[in-house]
């Protein structure tokens, strides 16, 4: 991969990690009427660790309209 490409991939990875930090730890907390059990929450964090160690490539995440195939990398 050329330098520009790997810088791009790195940037996408950072964006993903920053997104993850915000979406799971910040933002408005409302008690939705579907409560996740403690076990579910644990699962989320297990998934999180897997994600952090396994994200190698970053993807395009522009919005498509529903049903359209999303551009991927």
């Amino acid at each position: 991969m050329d330098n520009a490409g790997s810088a791009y991939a790195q940037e996408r990875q950072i964006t993903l990690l920053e997104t993850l930090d915000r979406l799971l730890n910040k933002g408005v907390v409302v008690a939705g009427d579907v409560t996740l059990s403690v076990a579910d929450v644990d699962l989320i964090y297990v998934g999180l660790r897997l994600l952090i160690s396994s994200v190698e490539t970053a993807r395009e995440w522009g919005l498509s309209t529903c049903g359209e195939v999303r551009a991927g990398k």
Partner: protein
Amino acid sequence: MEGIYLYGIVGFPPALTGEICGLGETPVFLVPHGGLAALVGPSPLAPWPPDEIHLTRHEAVVEKVMGSRPILPVRFNTLFRSGEAVIALLDKQSQPFRSALDRVAGKVELGLRVLWEPPGNPEARLDQEAGEGGSGTEYLNRRLRDQRRQTSLRAAGEQVAQKVQARFRSLAVESWMRRLSTDRLLLSGAYLVERDRVDAFREGVAKAREEFSSLSFLLTGPWPPYHFVNGAHDDTGDALGA
């Protein structure tokens, strides 16, 4: 069983321009109530896996809307059984949601992480390599040295962090920060910045890079105002005051 996934809270009425595609490739729509609207989509009543595809899809929906109006971003995997339950939330939290929307109107969040090379201490590293072995006294000495190292690290970090933070606080309306969440991560900051001050903030980071050449600066954003919606939390939530 089908439920409703909540992405964010916006003021009403602004019509959504164009179709926005949400989680599970389903269209996002607005549930209006009393001058507010919930940005929602249909969803099974089970948590979405927090992986790259789903996190970025949620984020993309919020960012798409954020371009045209203030939005309060809601935490990932907030699910409701019915539209009535969403309306009940808008009804009950009307006041905090309105003030939070006023607070973030016209502003975006910028994220800044500052890394440093912590002052080295070869002795500490040797101690770690020595592992769990040794007598009780050796163990206690090791613990003591480790504690001293942490204390001096914090003191040194505090000084640098304050200098850096002073730079950016004036460029933002509000700021949030955490120091030394790991030894290398000197500062994690979030800044609520007027849209037309974003470029000034970027320039501020560029200048700081020159001035503090031993530090690494990672600037991200513009983000929805994730760090600046506390106060809009639902009273019944278990994370109140977090």
